[in-house]
């Protein structure tokens, strides 16, 4: 904390650094675009700062700001929907280094997985993607999705089950 700095800002800065990656990945899980996810993350933290004094329990900061990020990302996705359709894929392909055979195999699996994830019902897909974000437990996923923890767990299980069934020979 800098001398003369607002104590709220010092607390906020600490929480911001702790949660920035998680909040970014929540946005990325929806938008699949790093630039958009960056903007949404920044917007979410600015909004969080404006309302920071109303947050009674700092333990809930992660879930609180992640939920903001989630909702902002959903709004942005709605406005970007045409662009995403034009691009043709939800997630950008990532390069798998070195071994060309492994790369081809990984790309094929990734492609099939993307396809099946895109085919999941929205509720199951949301639970699946949020659960994959590092730092988010089922309780936090429930808070973000505004459902009880048990529902979040159940949706995650159903999503994985559906994926496994479709990917089995």
């Amino acid at each position, binding site marked *: 904390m800098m001398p003369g700095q*607002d104590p*709220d*800002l010092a607390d*906020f*800065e600490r929480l*911001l*650094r702790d949660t*920035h*990656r998680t909040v*970014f*990945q929540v946005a*990325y*899980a929806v938008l*699949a675009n*790093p630039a958009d*996810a*960056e903007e949404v*993350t*920044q917007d979410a*933290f*600015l909004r969080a*700062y*404006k*309302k*920071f*004094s*109303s947050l009674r329990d700092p333990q809930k900061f992660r879930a609180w700001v992640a939920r903001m990020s989630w909702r902002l990302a959903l709004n942005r996705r709605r406005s970007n929907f045409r662009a995403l359709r034009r691009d043709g894929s939800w*997630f950008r392909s*990532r390069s798998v280094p070195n071994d060309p055979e492994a790369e081809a195999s990984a790309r094929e*699996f*990734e492609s099939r*997985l*993307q396809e099946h*994830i895109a085919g999941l019902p929205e509720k199951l897909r949301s639970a*699946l*993607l949020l659960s*994959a*974000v*590092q730092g988010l437990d089922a309780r936090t996923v429930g808070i973000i999705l505004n459902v009880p923890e048990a529902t979040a767990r159940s949706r995650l*299980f159903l999503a*994985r*089950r559906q*994926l*496994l*069934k479709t*990917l*089995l020979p």
Partner: protein
Amino acid sequence: MNACPKWREELIDHALGGLPAAALQAHLATCAGCSEALEAWRRKAAQIDTGVQQLIAAEPRAQGPERVLTQIQRSPVKPFYGRVALAALMLTVSLVVVLDRPAPPKKVVPFPVMALSTWRSPTQSLLHSAADPLLRRVPRLGEKFFETKPTGDKNAQ
């Protein structure tokens, strides 16, 4: 790797971490095909989990938090406090307006005797009507109180 069709659904649940029923456990102890399938499906489930994590494994820019802090420092006044101050001001103004409003004029109660002098019983108004002068007069021969129009009844002609 051929799982028995009968146990397929339960094997899938078990591969995803669900607890197996006693019957499935007993079956797995004796069926090599189902045990082999279970292991393969567990690997596939792990592959799916890893794949999903990789799909969203993008990293934010390192200077992301600094950008947020710079934005905050550009507009240091917290709108939340501003809103609280505005709400307090509006509340004060409304209280002043409500409390400072002139009281409504008091209803002047007339002296009881005066009130009695102007009092009329309700029956008076019910007994008198605009037709009183007409009804009090004795009608002359052939005089009609009310003009009646012919009805145009054909049978009467």
